[in-house]
């Protein structure tokens, strides 16, 4: 089962894939993992620019990046893990909200 996507998540995915370079990066890392510097050699742009593209893809949970020695390795995120990561993010929000409500109750007690 795929996790339900929020509007913000769908926006992030569409935004990420609206760019030809980013689509190409996704295609290549699905094939096999690549370092950011190896990706940078493929395109007529700076390392920093490629890094920015990778960051946009990461925010949309389409790829993940890991540091390996001096290299940053980019790989496609398997959909099951992507779903789980997204759900855990939402579960974190849920508990943040609960903790905020706990805090309000604790503050009330202090005023009395």
């Amino acid at each position, binding site marked *: *089962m795929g*996790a339900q996507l929020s509007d913000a998540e769908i926006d992030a995915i569409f935004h990420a894939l609206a760019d030809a370079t980013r689509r190409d990066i996704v295609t290549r890392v699905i094939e096999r993992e690549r370092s950011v510097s190896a990706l940078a050699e493929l395109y007529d742009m700076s390392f920093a620019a490629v890094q920015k593209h990778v960051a946009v893809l990461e925010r949309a949970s389409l790829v993940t990046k890991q540091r390996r020695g001096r290299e940053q390795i980019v790989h496609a995120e398997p959909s*099951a893990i992507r779903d789980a990561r997204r*759900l855990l*993010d939402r*579960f*974190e929000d849920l508990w943040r909200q609960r903790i905020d409500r706990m*805090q309000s109750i604790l503050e009330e007690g202090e005023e009395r």
Partner: protein
Amino acid sequence: MTFIEAVKDPDALTMTMVAEFDRPAERVWKLWEDPRQLERWWGPPGWPTTFTRHDFAVPGRSTYYMSGTEGEKAHGWWSWLEIAEPTTLRVEDGFADENGDPTGDLGSTVFTVTLEPTDGGGTRMSIASQFESAEQLQAMVDMGMEEGMKGSLGQIDAILAED
């Protein structure tokens, strides 16, 4: 309060959340022990929570429901596995029917709450959750959040309204 951190492992389906409060552990403990306080923070805004049972003991059972504006209800149950005042709580959590009995759907999750004193007289609370499957996690998220409640129960409502 200083929000500290959330450590998430999507492979293992676990999350540990840590928060600090500037009140002693004995006070923070009451948020769990007193059902009237518990029902003020457990459910999302707009979904008043009612604990119909709160046997705060091992073995012990708690049951609750959350009500939407259209009269729809979402039910849950807890089973207390460990209570060591004021430091540790271990709870099994699952979905219930309208009588508060476990439905058995999507299994159950266990979460562990640990309270430790901080140097400044406050409390560090950690909550560690372990899920059995992504489906279960999805259902728990939907039940705990206003947006999710609207989504899951709203859909059921819409389907019923069609008849």
